[in-house]
């Protein structure tokens, strides 16, 4: 661990930055000390180095992000990584509780460890690591790839339609990216990014509806360390289902496994020494795809926000899981001999913000990007009196707060909040700033609707979403975690089939079962329908938190899970 003195000696500008972002300097704990050099330690370097970031969700500055304590796998994914949490995760990977690894990779003792080890991520820290690795290896041996969901998820990204992160990626010297939430800026904007950005926007699996023609370049070949590397892009295949299709009305997605095989074969025929798929499929879909498409050396996975300290091997294919929110940078060095990948070394590099000296150029860019919104971002609405986090299959306390806000502000009996995986974590005592609220809500379809639903309709909604998470075949899954429900409890048996998982719907206020034919008032946000009416959800949350002053969320016991 870098000492406070070392940090201060790095200059007053830096000290000022740290003070401004509220970052406390963590101390060495239990004899564990760590430096930037330690983070960058790597075994024997390969013919070339792949660097992977993904699902940054436009988080420019360091943040807390608690990994899920519930992340259930079904079918072949049951009980295997990444569907392990906390102690099971630590045991599987041979890690110890209370350590930096436990802090960055699990939710164990999160609040305490967060106070000890500090915030993670920050694009200025990532830039520092990338620069150091490029300096070590030579820029001609390093390929930097983004797995998508980089351009969305913050107030500045919403306000600039992702331009803030385009600037960041340009400054980082990104080579290529893929997309998912990027598509929620609409087809025109994505086309503009594709055409103007200095990096490639790749997607083999997007076609124009009318002509069935590719909308994006499927692949791009790079030469690094004397090796030819084909990078094939795979956009989130369920984008038009999980997000508003009307924003991209002329594009069709899908997994398109057969087309992927053709791309791999074409890359090999074109002389590629290594074939890398830059994917936003989600880990389980990638695991299945790796078992069915031959000739892929590496799949850089994304979407499901999993972070794993080792690669998962499926046949001859290596699967890398880099986490989310800029918490990690993956480094994978590949040895190429006789036009084949013959070996690899991997390091999931945790971006401990207190250990890494920010890259000054990127720090300035971040400050410039955020300056026009500084007043809004800094606005303190209230205080967290308990840990506020989002990730988890069924609920998160941040979402509980959003549901409470929706029910109160829209005078509804039931609230529905989407199971997004992104959005930071606040520790007890932290200010709830508008920045933090936007980090969990900044989408292009934020309207909070108010409607009525029968008990039967609500059950159908829950069954439908549950099947998108717990269908035993990952190719039939899509979207995020389970929709969050405020005001209602239910039981779910994840081992059952479609339409059979949900039972015991209970209106929490009365403790009575939800009646199938009775009508209830329901409010929610992020509807994928067009022309939805209602105020943006962040306005409701702002009002709610401002009124409440402090927000304390009790552990949520309203979802009973079986069959896991």
């Amino acid at each position, binding site marked *: 661990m870098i000492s406070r003195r070392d940090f201060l000696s790095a200059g007053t500008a830096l000290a000022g930055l740290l003070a401004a972002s509220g970052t406390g300097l963590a101390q060495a704990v239990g004899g564990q000390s760590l430096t930037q050099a330690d983070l960058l330690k790597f075994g024997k370097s390969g013919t070339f180095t792949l660097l992977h970031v993904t699902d940054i969700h436009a988080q420019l500055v360091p943040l807390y992000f608690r990994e899920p304590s519930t992340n259930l796998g079904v079918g072949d994914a049951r009980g295997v990584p990444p569907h392990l949490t906390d102690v099971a995760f630590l045991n599987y990977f041979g890690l110890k509780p209370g350590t930096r690894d436990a802090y960055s990779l699990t939710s164990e003792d999160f609040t305490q460890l967060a106070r000890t080890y500090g915030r993670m991520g920050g694009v200025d820290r990532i830039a520092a690591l990338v620069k150091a690795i490029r300096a070590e290896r030579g820029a001609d041996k390093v390929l930097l790839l983004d797995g998508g969901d980089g351009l969305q998820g913050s107030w500045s990204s919403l306000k600039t339609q992702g331009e803030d992160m385009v600037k960041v990626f340009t400054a980082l010297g990104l080579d290529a990216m893929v997309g998912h939430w990027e598509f929620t800026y609409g087809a025109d904007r994505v086309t503009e990014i594709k055409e103007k950005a200095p990096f490639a926007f790749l997607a083999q699996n997007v076609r124009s509806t009318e002509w069935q023609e590719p909308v994006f370049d499927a692949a791009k070949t790079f030469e690094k360390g004397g090796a030819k590397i084909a990078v094939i892009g795979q956009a989130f295949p369920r984008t038009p289902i999980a997000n508003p299709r009307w924003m991209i009305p002329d594009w069709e997605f899908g997994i398109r496994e057969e087309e992927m095989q053709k791309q791999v074969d074409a890359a090999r025929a074109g002389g590629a020494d290594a074939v890398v798929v830059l994917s936003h499929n989600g880990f389980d879909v990638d695991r299945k795809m790796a078992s069915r498409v031959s000739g892929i050396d590496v799949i850089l996975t994304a979407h499901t926000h999993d972070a794993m300290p080792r690669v998962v091997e499926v046949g001859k294919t290596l699967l890398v899981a880099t986490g989310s929110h800029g918490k990690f940078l993956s480094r994978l060095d590949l040895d190429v001999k006789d036009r084949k990948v013959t070996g690899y070394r991997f390091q999931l590099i945790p971006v401990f913000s207190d250990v890494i000296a920010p890259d000054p150029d990127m720090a300035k860019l971040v400050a410039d990007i955020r300056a026009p919104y500084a007043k809004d971002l800094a606005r303190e609405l209230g205080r967290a009196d308990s840990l506020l986090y989002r990730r988890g299959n069924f609920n998160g306390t941040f979402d509980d707060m959003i549901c409470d806000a929706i029910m109160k502000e829209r005078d509804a009996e039931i609230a529905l909040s989407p199971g997004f995986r992104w959005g930071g974590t606040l520790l007890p005592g932290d200010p709830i700033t508008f920045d933090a609220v936007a980090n969990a809500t900044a989408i292009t379809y934020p309207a909070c609707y108010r409607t009525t639903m029968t008990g039967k309709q609500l059950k159908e909604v829950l069954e439908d979403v549950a099947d998108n998470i717990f*269908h035993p075949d990952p190719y039939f899954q899509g*979207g995020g975690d389970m929709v969050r429900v405020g005001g209602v409890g239910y039981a779910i048996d994840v081992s059952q089939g*479609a339409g059979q998982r949900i039972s015991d719907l209970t209106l929490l206020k009365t403790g009575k079962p939800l009646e199938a034919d009775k009508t209830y008032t329901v409010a929610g946000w992020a509807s994928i329908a067009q022309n939805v009416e209602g105020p943006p959800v962040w306005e409701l949350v702002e009002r709610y938190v401002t009124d409440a002053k402090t927000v304390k969320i009790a552990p949520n016991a309203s979802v009973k899970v079986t069959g896991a």
Partner: protein
Amino acid sequence: MPLHLDATLVPTRRRALKLAGLATLAAVLAPRMALATEAQVADEIKKLFSGKAMGEGKIKLDLPEIAENGLVVPINLDVESPMTEADFVKSVHVFADGNPLPQVLTYRFTPESGKASASARMRLAQTQNVIAVAEMSNGQLYSAKAQVKVTIGGCGG
């Protein structure tokens, strides 16, 4: 019998041009079936083909696992055959076992078609199986089945 879910043939323009030389497209709606359950449709299909055994393989049925737009779900099919006078695919029948009108369409081919492949779009109101049955010139039958999930979606990720 509700007719709102009958065959909707929307071949993409270019595909349609390509198809013109390959297959005679015909949305044949008779004999009609108006059935509810998967099992009943399976029974009806059996009856329609006089209970003859159906082989597997030969038919490549390409459908999305999850429909992006239930109103126009793309279907691409391709039946392996030399397509000679002695051995060709006569017809391919497509059924959707969750639609009120399960018999969605029939393609008829001749050796001149050169290839027994076709594409179309169909409307699927709910999650269901799509079943293709190919009738060969020697009378042999082959079938293939794929599930298409129709979801209300949302929840981003």
